[in-house]
């Protein structure tokens, strides 16, 4: 995309008095929380380069876990858990929105406010919320009542000095995307950051996948579309298939999530791959072993072994039956193995073909077009040329390739289609929020201060974040 300069100038000149008035009340320190359903990404905003700044960002599992021995573990303490068998999860977010503040407050308290538990990590300790501005992300199309709850909790429970609640995907437009798309740099690197003009953000996370057209840092609300499929559904689907075909893994969400991350990929030739993993085609034994079928050795917490994947050995079963005679070590003989063939690509496939599980919804590429169809045609080419993918599912191998290919096929032939994965798809939103926070003028334009909240209340805050006041 070309220059991004046309914007701030008129606005700044129109309301200089107002913006300075706001910035007077806003604390200088800015804390950014990207409140994901799976991981909270949190840290202080700084004007470091993205690489340095990401090292100050901490990922905290957004969950309460009950382990097999009935111990309850919260947030960042999860790293102390070694036995993940039969771990149960309670997440404060449903469908990407905070619906249970009782649990969320506990996680936030432990992660950011409690002096004892945050002692190890100064990067996430909010010592005095009164002197801190909070930038909090939310998923698009949140219910107004839940937005109100967020505002009330942030301002009344913790009492931040300044506060912005913004739609997560839009913040990605603040990242430096010219180099990502291979466009020439139009600004010097140390000028005030400004959002990209047109960016279509595909955010494929834990609970859902959203498509958000972002115009100069703001969402074009009518174009926002959501597919209710995310990483959680992939894990559960894999769990279900494996439980039906091999071991019963229905209570092993954590382990199956690791299996998914280790082996799943998006196929670019679905029927071909299906053919290659066809078990009945035993004659083609040699060709069926060309790398698709993998063995995943399940973790063994008693022997303190982690799970890992390795190429499939079709003779392993026979050898194991022979027991010690086969000359295998005791370690190998005791291990439990999942054989993963078409599960590897049939599972992530539902993001592209939701009808495979009977869902009456289009796949991600067509949702992008559905999103664009609500917008003026003059914008289509600009958005199609700037599709950015963030969120954990972007890391599934083959995802980007498939999206680019399918979008190219169904998009209008005159348009250039460029689909790029953010350099760091997990932290991209958080990084964008940091860049946004360094632009004090823009920040003070949308943020509210503690005094304003106390004066006008949460109803006003909600209207203000909706852009109505």
């Amino acid at each position, binding site marked *: *995309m*070309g220059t991004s300069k046309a914007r701030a100038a008129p606005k700044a000149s129109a309301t200089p008095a107002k913006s300075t008035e706001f910035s007077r009340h806003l604390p200088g320190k800015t804390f950014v929380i990207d409140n994901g359903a799976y991981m909270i990404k949190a840290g202080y905003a700084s004007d470091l380069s993205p690489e340095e700044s990401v090292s100050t960002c901490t990922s905290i599992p957004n969950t309460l*876990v*009950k382990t097999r021995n009935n111990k*309850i573990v919260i947030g960042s303490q999860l790293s102390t858990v070694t036995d993940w068998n039969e771990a*149960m*999860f*309670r*997440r404060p977010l*449903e469908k990407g*929105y905070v*619906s249970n*503040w*009782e649990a969320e407050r506990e996680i936030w308290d432990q992660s950011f406010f409690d002096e004892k538990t945050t002692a190890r990590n100064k990067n996430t300790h909010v010592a005095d919320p009164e002197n801190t501005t909070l930038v909090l992300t939310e998923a698009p*199309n949140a*219910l*107004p*009542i839940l937005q109100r*709850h967020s505002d*009330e909790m942030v301002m009344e*429970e913790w009492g931040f000095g300044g506060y912005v609640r913004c739609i997560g995907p839009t913040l990605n437009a603040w990242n430096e995307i010219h180099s990502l798309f291979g466009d020439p740099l139009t600004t010097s690197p140390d000028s005030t950051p400004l959002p990209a*003009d047109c960016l279509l953000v595909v955010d494929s996370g834990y609970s859902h996948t959203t498509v958000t057209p972002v*115009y100069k840092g703001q*969402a074009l*609300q*009518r174009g*926002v*579309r*959501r*597919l*209710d499929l995310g990483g959680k*559904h992939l894990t*559960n689907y894999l769990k*279900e*298939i494996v439980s039906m075909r091999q071991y019963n893994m*229905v209570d092993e*969400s954590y382990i199956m999530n690791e299996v998914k991350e280790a082996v799943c990929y998006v196929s670019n030739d679905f029927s071909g791959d299906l053919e290659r993993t066809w078990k009945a085609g035993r004659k083609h034994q040699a060709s069926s072993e060309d790398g698709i079928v993998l063995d995943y050795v399940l973790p063994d917490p008693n022997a303190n072994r982690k799970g890992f994947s390795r190429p499939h050995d079709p003779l392993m079963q026979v050898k194991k039956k022979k027991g010690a005679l086969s000359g295998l070590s005791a370690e190998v003989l005791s291990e439990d193995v999942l054989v993963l063939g078409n599960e590897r690509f*049939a599972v992530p496939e539902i993001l592209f*073909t939701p*009808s*495979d*599980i*009977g869902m009456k*919804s*289009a*796949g991600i590429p*067509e949702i992008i077009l*559905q999103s664009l169809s609500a917008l*003026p*045609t*003059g*914008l*289509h*080419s*600009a958005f199609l*040329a*700037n599709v950015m993918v963030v969120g954990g599912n972007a890391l599934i191998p083959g995802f980007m390739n498939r999206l680019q290919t399918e979008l190219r096929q169904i998009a209008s032939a005159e*348009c*250039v289609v460029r689909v790029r994965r953010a350099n760091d798809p997990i932290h991209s939103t958080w990084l964008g929020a940091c860049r946004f926070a360094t632009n004090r003028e823009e920040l003070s334009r949308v943020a509210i201060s503690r005094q304003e909240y106390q004066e006008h209340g949460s109803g006003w805050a909600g209207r203000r974040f*909706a852009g109505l006041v």
Partner: protein
Amino acid sequence: MFRVELLQDTSTATPGWSYAPTRGFDPTQAMAPTLGRKRGIRDAGKGGDISSRQANAIARHIAELDRENQRDVAIPVPVRQAREVAARGNRSKTTSNVRRILQSQKTFRNHLDDEEAAIALGTGGGALAHSSNAAAVAARGAKARSSTPASVAGKKRPSAAVTSTSTATTTAASTPTPTTAEMGADEVPARKPKLIKSEFDQDPLLRSYAPPVPSERLMARLLSEPPLSYNASRAKAPSSARPARHFCCA
């Protein structure tokens, strides 16, 4: 025989029930009792190629995939020690709002149902209720677009210049026809055939088409739109009528 009763206007009726207007004769309703009861229930309503039994099974499967745990478990938030509570003493007292939120046992589904009910009553909390509303805005937007004539679009307004950079690259890349070459950097070639007149200007094969970049006014209007409701933003069914794939063991 007939009793004529003047019905009240909707929405103010007693809570729990209301008069629903019938819009004429609905053949599916009229037909239902004559068919067998079971089949009627199974096939009514859902339409399309699957029975309601299949539809229910699919819905249940999708709900299953949406779960965090296979079994229902209660994981209580650990009770804080008294001294830890005292440690957060410098924090102001818990307000009534906070207490209400923390004690709320409502799930997302409950909130969503409330929201849908509010929208149905026409008091949706700021969310753009449904497509009819959106269509109205679209119509207004379209009007606004048509009311900014070619002269405005032709003038190099900053926004037009900004957004056209990408459109220019796309047209240049995909259709390097003589027309675009002649017009050079001109952003709306189709609208200014006067520049260099030739008999080929109207030739449909040579004309390059770039849709006009929306005006700044239209963009401001689009940006100020309220968000769609949760359900309105859900992805629609695919446009292709290709039947869903089925696998023998999945």
